[in-house]
């Protein structure tokens, strides 16, 4: 069965410093992995996805994620946080036709 584990429920960074949101996955075959972001009172927006092409995936708003099969990880990074990045981030694995979500990591950005 597919699953994802987001290792931090809350991450706090200062504006301008790097962001690292951690995600580990479990899959019996080559997975499709996604990161979604949810801003307060908004829907889920796709940041990026991995589908077995390049292991380093670039997404919107300067985010990227690296698929590491040996570590079963798909961590989300951004070199420099912006105040507008404050939101909840979900690591997601695709289970054939539906999505399995992690518990989410709330990112706070301090001025």
């Amino acid at each position: 069965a597919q699953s994802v584990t987001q290792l931090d429920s809350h991450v706090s960074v200062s504006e301008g410093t790097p962001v690292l949101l951690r995600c580990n996955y479990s899959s019996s075959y080559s997975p499709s992995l996604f990161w979604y972001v949810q801003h307060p009172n908004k829907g889920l927006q796709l940041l990026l996805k991995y589908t077995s092409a390049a292991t380093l995936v670039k997404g919107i708003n300067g985010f990227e994620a690296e698929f590491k099969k040996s570590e079963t990880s798909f961590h989300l990074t951004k070199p420099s946080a912006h105040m507008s990045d404050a939101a909840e981030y979900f690591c997601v694995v695709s289970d054939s036709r539906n999505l399995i979500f992690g518990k989410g990591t709330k990112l706070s950005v301090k001025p």
Partner: protein
Amino acid sequence: EPEVTQTPSHQVTQMGQEVILRCVPISNHLYFYWYRQILGQKVEFLVSFYNNEISEKSEIFDDQFSVERPDGSNFTLKIRSTKLEDSAMYFCAGTLAGTSTDTQYFGPGTRLTVL
């Protein structure tokens, strides 16, 4: 850019009442989904729908729930007799091809509050 829309944004209902949550998917999408997120918990898959039939459903999607696409545009989720534990955010999503690599596009959600 086309978007998925959902109405209402917030629905308050009494326990035991029926509610219908509505979604208008992106026009060329063929596969549709409902998910829910109870406050403080994970987003959970409820049901997928293709070609006017349910493709898959989770354990959550019991006989109290039903979905339909009556007019080829609106995609609805009906809860026949709401319970307190149905209070959650309900998200509609759609995809073009329905494959595991296909991106699901989500609506903004309907917050359902059952009193």
